[in-house]
């Protein structure tokens, strides 16, 4: 294994309960963090809905992966990024979010993608 830390950006772009990809992406985040890489997680497009705090799947058999998000800081994944336009498009307010995130405009999102050594676009 190489010694150099890589900047790994994982993008969650699908809505909750719509696809297996958000969970697949989160597993990549946790594994990359276990490998002590510099991991960022971007919630993009409908993916921002994962950050809605008042989610409960108690009445269904669906898995709520958002429950795992507050524990990301234990894995030293602190760079949580959010698509500002998608937040507005989905009528979400910052104070409704599960955890603090940096709101990025499209230009800043491009810059975050360009700055990463590796992007997992899920």
């Amino acid at each position, binding site marked *: 294994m190489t010694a150099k830390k*890589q900047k*790994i950006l994982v993008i969650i772009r699908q809505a909750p309960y719509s696809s*297996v*990809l958000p969970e697949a992406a989160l*597993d990549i985040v946790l*594994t990359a963090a276990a*490998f002590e890489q510099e991991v960022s997680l971007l919630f993009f497009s409908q993916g921002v809905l994962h950050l809605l705090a008042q989610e409960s799947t108690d009445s269904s058999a669906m898995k709520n992966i958002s429950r795992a998000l507050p524990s990301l800081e234990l894995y030293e994944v602190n760079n949580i990024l959010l698509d500002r336009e998608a937040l507005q498009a989905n009528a979400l307010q910052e104070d409704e979010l599960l955890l603090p995130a940096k709101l990025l405009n499209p230009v800043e999102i491009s810059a975050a993608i360009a700055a990463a050594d*590796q992007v*997992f676009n*899920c």
Partner: protein
Amino acid sequence: MQSFTLVIYASPQSPSSMTALNFARALLASGHSLYRLFFYQDGVYNACSFQVPPQDEIDLPAAWQALVQEHEIDAVVCVASALKRGIVDTAEAERYELAAANLREGFVISGLGQLIDATLNSDRTLNFLP
């Protein structure tokens, strides 16, 4: 000359898997190297030996296997994705007392750590989503 890792999330029924296979063939033909193939999520079905495609359709798992064996490629199947989809090698079949094993020869079952290892050790990692 660059080294590549391809991550296949798509099942053999998705055109994305065919694209990934063609990409793998093209990069090898151009003199680049494949550090690893990583089959994740529905991509694990590409390593299954129990699929019987119609005669007028390509047998994608067989085509992957031929490429893997010809070039001795490290082809890793994600264990969590595989078990929940019923793709098992003989060791897992015995462990869970299943009727048969169906992982194609040439593929190995391992963990997601192999994906991160591949990312760190290849020049480029490409994702093929459904």
